């Protein structure tokens, strides 16, 4: 299958008065139609910058973003409208991503108007259909965002993203501001829409337990680089990178069965360094339990440790050479 999205050697730097922030520093991955790729990392890892560069909020410093084989690495103003229609985004906080001065009806109709979809009557029907899709009552078109609960607002944001029938949806922590019982409903709805419409999801999150249940593949980012990328089941059963292991062993879980899934307890230490002055060599070496001499000198090359399972770590590179 042809990938719908290809990220090649993407770099995004921000020049500030205190130095250059290397938010995303050469990453590559692709995404297939109908697939969910979980992009996981701590704050400051560059996961949101990656998402915003794909949607066009930022122009990449270098590297390529290909959508259906076509280079789209230009800022959003220069992108053709058809492209904007095909790539949509759902933000973390529906409290700020919905215009407080518009009704839900107006919010849902806007993308249809912008892309000149249908007549006024058809648009009205489509808005009603979108509300039905996310299981909200039809009379919500007259309500303002502040009259809705957090979960309902996020449903509206999702309906808005789906209004133009996109092929790729970027989900930027869509449930991290919500309670678990509401999260369950939203996630299940997203999975159902994906099946019905063959949507590709780039799912940005810090929640690995959630990714175990949602993603087809998972990529871990740390300080602007990808550490490990693997099919979801493989990723959780056989994590390779010491950072992945540290993350997994830090997750608080609710049952003994889950404790068994965690790798042997790796005590987490240190904090993510500043992306202005990232450590040389492997960026994780300052917090790594298994580092050796080479880690602070050379940037690790990618190693394929299993089918589609990529790791950027010197521990495994050396074994290959021997």
């Amino acid at each position, binding site marked *: 299958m042809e990938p719908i999205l290809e990220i090649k050697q993407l770099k995004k730097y921000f020049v500030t008065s205190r130095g250059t922030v290397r938010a995303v520093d050469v990453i590559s991955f692709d995404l297939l139609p109908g697939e969910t790729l979980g992009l996981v990392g701590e704050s400051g890892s560059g996961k949101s910058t990656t998402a915003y560069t794909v949607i066009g909020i930022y122009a990449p410093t270098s590297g390529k973003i290909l959508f259906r084989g076509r280079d789209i690495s230009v800022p959003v103003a220069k992108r053709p409208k058809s492209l904007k229609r095909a790539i949509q985004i759902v933000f973390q906080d529906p409290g700020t991503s919905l215009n407080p001065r518009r009704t839900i009806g107006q919010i849902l109709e806007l993308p249809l108007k912008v892309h000149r979809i249908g007549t006024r009557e058809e648009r009205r029907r489509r808005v009603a259909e979108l509300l039905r899709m996310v299981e909200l009552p039809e009379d919500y078109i007259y309500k303002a965002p502040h009259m809705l609960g957090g979960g309902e607002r996020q449903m509206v944001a999702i309906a808005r993203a789906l209004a133009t029938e996109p092929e790729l949806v970027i989900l930027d922590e869509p449930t991290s501001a919500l309670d678990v019982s509401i999260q*369950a409903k939203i*996630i299940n709805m997203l999975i159902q829409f994906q099946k019905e419409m063959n949507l590709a999801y780039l799912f940005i999150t810090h929640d690995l337990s959630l990714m*175990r*249940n949602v993603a087809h593949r998972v990529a871990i980012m740390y300080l602007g680089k990808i550490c490990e990328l693997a099919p979801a089941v493989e990723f959780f059963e056989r994590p390779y990178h010491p950072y992945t292991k540290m993350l*997994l062993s830090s997750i608080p879980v*609710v049952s003994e069965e889950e404790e068994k899934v965690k790798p042997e307890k790796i005590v987490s230490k240190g904090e993510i360094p500043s992306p202005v002055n990232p450590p040389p060599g492997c960026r994780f070496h300052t917090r790594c339990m298994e580092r050796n001499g080479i880690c602070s000198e050379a940037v690790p090359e990618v190693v394929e440790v299993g089918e589609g399972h990529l790791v950027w770590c010197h521990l495994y590179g050396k074994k290959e050479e021997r």
Partner: protein
Amino acid sequence: MGDVLLDIRDLYVEFKVYEGKLKVLNGVFLSVREGQRVGLVGEAGCGKTTTMKCVLRILPSPPGRITEGEILFRGEDILQMPPRKVQLIRGRRISMIFQDPTAALNPVFTIGDQLMTVIRYGSRNSLPKKEIRQRAIKALQEVQLPDPERILASYPIQLSGGMRQRVCIAMALSTEPELLIADEPTTNLDVTIQDQVLRLLNALVERRNTSVIFITHSLGVVREMADWVYVMYAGNIIEGGPKEELFREPLHPYTRGLMRAVPKLTGGGIAEGVPGRIPDYLDPPSGCRFHPRCEHAMPRCSQEKPPFLPVTGEHRVACFLYQG
């Protein structure tokens, strides 16, 4: 386990708003023994923080008002104490860590100013300046902050989120309180930093035998932090008991739903936990406040409020399913 340190009995709180009265707390029962680590779990808006504000008597009033109930601290009702006496308890014998360390620290004073103020007012007798400074340094060392001298001279903005929360923990524990209330102290932190802060907090309270009330919305965090768990829903404690029992066999339909809805590391998809949303406090459901969302609701549930009674041993639940 030691004696009962804090005992909240049948606490009711209302908030006056333009539209009427928000009946937020609806008869809360919660007790903490000496050296016990109590977890209080519930979703946003269920009244966890409101309950704790009553304990410290920092509930903004108006609009808030405690209409019924008592909060016994070592047998004395905090709600009946004169304000001066409450002040002697607040910060010295009961201290609190808040969710957002950035908001908890004053941005225009150094960490040293703030930490030393807490130590000065928190100690029972007046201390010389040098002694206060030494205690501040010791407090920072205890929370494993490197280079305490430099941190004393820093402003909050110069520290990372994890470091700021460590400073808040140092402040809260510097007065050697008998009870520590930690209100979602790791919610804003990354998972690896959360792990570090939780481990640190656990080690510190264990060493001092401090009692803790740990408020969180995360069942996973409670499992790591508490030995006793209370579950709260819409202003009521609906279930409580020893951690092992509660996680092995949750009883209340709401607790069971929450457990189902948590994404598991073992996979298998996410079960839809509890349909519907938290009720409107202006006009809360009659009887059991959970009955409109409950799959086991019986006619009785909308008529009477279920009492909070033991089912097996000390595992208590407020649900008619278990009360013949």
